[in-house]
């Protein structure tokens, strides 16, 4: 008999493969905070910059996702850049312009912009 646990494990495997199918295994993953507070601080524009960059092929091999609020109210909007095997990089107080610089320097150039990093 198939138990609910069997079913949920199957669902999890399917979910994981769907996420991978969306490009999760890309070299870099970018998360943009998109809770009410983050949006109020301007994260929609930030998200748009990353979306455009990917759509226009300015950056390649990047997985972009929205996320909820982790709780750093005074540092919003927040953006994370995660690369397997490296320390996750967490940026705070990002606006559209800073997002473009992250794309240029970090995503394309591999250079972490230290001054915006949340320690």
């Amino acid at each position, binding site marked *: 008999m*198939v*138990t*609910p*646990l069997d*079913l*949920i*494990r199957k*669902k*999890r495997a*399917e*979910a*994981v493969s*769907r*996420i991978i199918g969306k490009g999760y295994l890309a070299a870099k993953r970018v*998360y943009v*905070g998109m*809770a*009410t*507070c983050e*949006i109020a601080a301007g994260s929609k524009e930030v998200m748009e910059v990353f979306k455009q960059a990917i759509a226009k092929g300015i950056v390649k091999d990047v997985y972009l*996702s*929205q*996320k*909820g*609020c*982790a*709780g*750093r*109210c*005074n*540092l919003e909007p*927040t953006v*994370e850049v*995660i690369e397997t*095997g*490296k*320390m*996750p990089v*967490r940026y705070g107080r990002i606006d559209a312009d800073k997002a473009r610089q992250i794309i240029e320097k970090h995503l394309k150039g591999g250079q*972490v912009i*230290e001054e915006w990093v*949340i*320690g």
Partner: protein
Amino acid sequence: MMEYAITICEGPTCIGRHADRLRAILLEELAKRGLKDHVRINISGCLGMCHKGPFLVVNPGYTIYGGVTESDIPVIVEEHIVKDRPIARLAVQEDHLFNRFYRIFGDVGFFGKQMRITLRNCGIIDPENIDDYLALRGYEALAKVLTEMTPQQVIAEVKQSGLRGRGGAGFPTGLKWELTAKQPGPEKYVICNADEGDPGAFMDRSAIEGDPHTILEGMIIGGYAIGSNHGIVYIRAEYPLAVRRLEIAIQQARQHNLLGKGILGTNFDFDIEIRLGAGAFVCGEETALIQSIEGARGMPRPRPPFPATSGLFGKPTLINNVETWANIPVIILEGAKWFSSIGTETSKGTKVFALAGCVVNTGLVEVPMGTTIRQVVYDIGGGIPGGKRLTAVQTGGPSGGCLPESYLDTPVDYESLAKAGSIMGSGGMIVMDETACMVDVARFFLEFTQSESCGKCTPCREGTKRMLEILERIVQGKGRPGDIERLERLGNMIKKASLCGLGQSAPNPVLSTIRHFRDEYQQHIEQKRCPAGVCKALLTYTITDACVGCGACKKVCPVGAISGTKKEKHVIDQAKCIRCGQCYTTCKFNAISRS
């Protein structure tokens, strides 16, 4: 750029096993090898893995080294840090739901010192994609109870966990479940109270916006445990994004057969609907909330009968708040035993606070029960900015109280906070520095509760109004002898005689500030003086000898109260001065004194 981050757990158990000495040795070792700039050392609060402590967590990779001894340190540095070869022999497998959070955020001091149970997925998953939740063992707790547990076993587990209601009152959750489960009849309701109304509180909103499925999963498990097929999330209409994400989550859960008929192939049916609140603070009170769902004016009614016996539409109803529900999947998967190992004797698990006010890091903070206010404010919040002095910490929102600096070592748990004159409440924590006037703070909160009183019972409706009037005259310099005693007399009566929790706690901000800051009240009333310089009517602005006669203050004074010739000391006509403070903020020479 740091290449590694090593987190050392310095929770009470690990400290007992000399984690602090390990840290010293580690620092020494790193210095010796010249690695100090490549490795960041973090101290964390309890990470909930006590039985394997003391331990170090090395990121990236989230390698957990458990039972670490002094002699292990050089080996870890040599192998893992220098040669980038994690040591399998020393590593332990700790499969926790929050691992993923710490993998990303664990080395950030602000997060590292927290313990993320209910907020474990907030900020790391896409809340609008059920796949993200499923991938992190989402709905596994539900599948587990449906596969292996009877409703009685689920209730026993929740009871054993020691979980208490996170909405404020701290009623044992398992007991509530048991009471509701015991009621006869097939028609029962499960309600999630997401009517977050405290000014400055946003725990529930963030939790729903960041991880809506956790709440749904908790509710479905609750429905299974008490024998209900009908869940309702009562959420304020002012949270449109949270509402939308809940709607999406419900839709997705239905598509995955996690809601609806025959959940996961069993014969258990459960569905959830959303009801929007119109924004009345009192609708967070469970009986008022029920009235509101029923379509009536949201006003509390006397208990008993409790919702567990006669709730929504007169049926047995299980109401828990957002944070309480979010704990349920964790308790089921990690086990009641593990859960109850976190926290204090009477308060188990963690509590989320919305840390705000005069503190460097404002934000959402989830800490184990028993963490002291000082740890929250200084270790996580980063202390008071601008070199100012902390005056008070307000917990519990408008129902809570103000605790002075001397109470900073009060642990956050239900009993300790109540003993100190405040309450846990739903989790607001406002830090105030020396620029806050305690009388004015009390007035602010009372103004809120008075205007949000449902108007039903006399003590709350009329009594808080009279208290507010007294506070208003005190801050206007019209306080009378006996006003403090009048406030206490009314406050104590309102506390004991009001119908619902809103009224019973409404005087807390006043009574706690009188208890801890009585002299401030006395100064306002007797000397007509506001020590914090907040109460406008009580301020006097004068120009000191430091005045160079630049005339800047004269220019900004809106009522022409300042006179003087250039390059000579100016004077303020006290009869004309309206105490707006413009001169004070304009003067570049600190020549205006305010007292």
